[in-house]
């Protein structure tokens, strides 16, 4: 082959490689653009849960129960009413063994008195009570995840990118548990496992085991009402599923989520009593 012919072949090869490169790069860019527009389209189909939310139902139930109740006539009923006010502090379908333990706890006047006198908490209760406690929160929705951002600064993450829970060796109990979810139209379905075992609430609510499994369906009931239908399965504590429905209202008189905290706590417990510390 003459030198001229070799140069011509080289030029031809380079030209073909350049063309191939253009096709490959162009294809990737097109795919990226398509993926981005698909993400934007998915985003556009997600519901609008912006604003600040508050569980007003629990608070109202609490006030109503006690407004009607005369504790001096039947104190035990008063205590039951207290637990009824928060749905997740209620009476779940316990196994006989745990039912006995529950009743014993209600009779433990000394422990309850101690809680009443010195009860103190600087943190948001973990899941599931975080979803009922009258704390304010925001819901941040993107295609890959939904975040519940509470005014305490705590955040509940729900992954919605099609992932399942990590395998057992990669997972351990946490206060919020591990949550994955998916959208069924405008309803967010959440599956939560690996919540730290123990009582719901501030040590006063029902006991849940390490096998507790939660399924939630969140959806808007009207323009300003969000509902969370929660089902709790606990084969070590309950005889059947426990269903709880929580409702939140969009807060109107607040322009932003304001942080709560305990950075300037002036109420230490000294010799078993809450006191006021000097400024």
């Amino acid at each position, binding site marked *: 082959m003459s030198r001229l012919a070799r140069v011509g072949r080289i030029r031809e090869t380079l030209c073909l490689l350049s063309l191939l490169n253009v096709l490959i790069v162009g294809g990737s860019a097109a795919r990226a653009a398509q993926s981005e527009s698909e993400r934007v389209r998915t985003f556009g189909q997600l519901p609008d849960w912006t604003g600040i939310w508050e569980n007003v139902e629990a608070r109202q139930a609490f006030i109503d129960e006690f407004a009607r109740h005369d504790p001096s006539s039947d104190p035990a009923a008063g205590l039951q009413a207290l637990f009824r006010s928060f749905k997740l502090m209620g009476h779940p379908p316990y196994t006989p063994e745990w039912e006995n333990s529950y009743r014993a706890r209600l009779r433990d006047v000394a422990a*309850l008195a101690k*809680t009443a*006198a010195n*009860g103190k908490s600087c943190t948001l209760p973990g899941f599931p009570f975080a979803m009922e406690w009258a704390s304010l929160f925001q819901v941040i929705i993107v295609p890959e995840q939904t975040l519940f951002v509470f005014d*305490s600064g705590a955040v509940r993450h729900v992954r919605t990118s099609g992932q399942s829970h990590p395998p057992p060796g990669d997972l351990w109990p946490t206060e919020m548990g591990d949550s994955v979810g998916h959208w069924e139209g405008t309803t967010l379905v959440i599956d939560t496992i690996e919540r730290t075992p123990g009582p719901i609430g501030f040590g006063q609510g029902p006991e849940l085991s390490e096998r507790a499994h939660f399924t939630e369906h969140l959806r808007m009931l009207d323009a300003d009402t969000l509902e969370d239908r929660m089902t709790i399965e606990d084969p070590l504590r309950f005889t059947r599923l426990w269903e709880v429905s929580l409702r939140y209202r969009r807060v109107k008189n607040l322009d932003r989520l304001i942080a709560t905290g*305990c950075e300037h706590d*002036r*109420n230490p417990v000294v010799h078993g009593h809450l*006191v006021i510390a000097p*400024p």
Partner: protein
Amino acid sequence: MRRAGSAACRWAVIVCEIMGWLIASPANAHHSAAMFDQQKALTLEGTVKEFQWTNPHCWIELLVAAPGGTRQWSIEMIAPSQLYRLGWRPGSIRIGEQLTVVVNPVRDGTQGGQFVSAISADGRHLGYGIAPGAKP
């Protein structure tokens, strides 16, 4: 009968104290209200030394005249986020301002209490149910 009555009374106190904690908690999310004697209302007249706009509670530090000088009272309020929602602001109470404050005093007898309401020297009503300066 007397013993049963006493037990019922004890239950009632416990239930009310837990109620107090839980009712207060959404507002102050912090501690039991059992440390305050909610059956007692004490009126304090004094000068504001400091208005602490802090988590988990806001505080009014009030200098109250007493035999031989003044005594400083620490008056506990709800959280800033809750006060803000009710119309309060960090500048709602000023240092040096004369205030008449109603409190539920602490049970241990120290100079502290839970804020109930207040009136400033210029007649502004300050409470949880109304924004500062609003007419009650």
